[in-house]
């Protein structure tokens, strides 16, 4: 999944790549809930167990804070690079 980067860091890549392992996801929406930019939403794609997977919303902007990766109880979502914390 790709999102436009919204970053204050100079020289950071324009696109943040979000990885999702659909086989681990249980559709709990923790990632959707924690995202301060509302970049994630539950999509229409369903995994083999019947859970609806999250997706990046249209024109979604990502600050690469990494909280979705951190909150996921199933280690199903992670980022390509994370902004350093303030």
């Amino acid at each position, binding site marked *: 999944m790709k999102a436009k980067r919204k970053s204050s860091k100079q020289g950071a890549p324009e696109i943040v*790549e979000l*990885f999702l392992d659909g*086989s*681990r996801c249980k559709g709990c*929406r*923790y990632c959707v809930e924690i995202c301060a930019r509302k970049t994630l939403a539950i999509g229409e794609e369903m995994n083999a167990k019947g*859970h609806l997977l999250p997706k990046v919303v249209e024109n979604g902007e990502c600050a690469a804070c990494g909280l979705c990766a*951190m909150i996921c*109880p199933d*280690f199903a979502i992670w980022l390509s690079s994370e902004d350093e914390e303030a």
Partner: protein
Amino acid sequence: MSEAVRQQQNPVDAYLRVDRLPSIWCAGCGIGTSLSCFIRAIERAKLDADKIALVSGIGCSGRVAGYVKLDSFHTTHGRAIPFATGLALANPELKVVVYSGDGDLAAIGGNHLIHAARRNIDMTVICVNNFNYGMTGGQLGPTTPLEARTSTSPYGNYEPPFNLPRLVAASGGTFVARWTVYHLRQLERCLAEALVRPGFNFVEVIAHCPTVYGRLNKQGQGTDGLRYFKEKSVVKNGADPAEADIALDGPIMLGKFVDIQRPSFCGNYQQVCVKAQKSK
């Protein structure tokens, strides 16, 4: 392209038995989140993962031991702490972590909890508190708030619960803190701090149980639990743990409550050995 290939694996997978995922925890259960913070805390603390020995008891939280790629022991109900004590005393180079739930640590394991705190054994105890015995179907436990419904308090719980930070502090715990699984960065940093500290370190992690406790008390799904933690938490570092009681649907006091230094069991024992070797 090549970077995408490189990043195909979740970086925390190095600490997980990925061949056992997805976990048995329900959708919306916070235990997995606590584990995620714990793994990141290990990295933040720059621990040698080979030296970590993780001991758990029985219950949903106890299943953490089976998912971490560390030397891990899934022991009997309530007995993680004495098992961990044996590990810690027999090999002081081990970094001993106990990871278990409210019922396991404070009901059947209560006696061991208070004595390990009293002795100041070098270990970090992570107590995930979801206010019930989830694995067995949502029975009341020693942290179930008054009035709460559980499968064994169908008319509302009438047993006053433990305030775990107060219990551990009163028993002599030198580091006592509480966070929720919503407070990700605080929890990660708190765990990282606890993990490098000598002595008995206790971190209570409040988590939602959407399947039983949360459902029986109309507290909604996992995300509703997160919202409750976000809205009702009050952070008060340094507060007196006696003020940290939790009422049903009430505010949750969070923070680092106790951070003191006290001689550890190991230190005391070494001094005794020196004395013993000098005496006739």
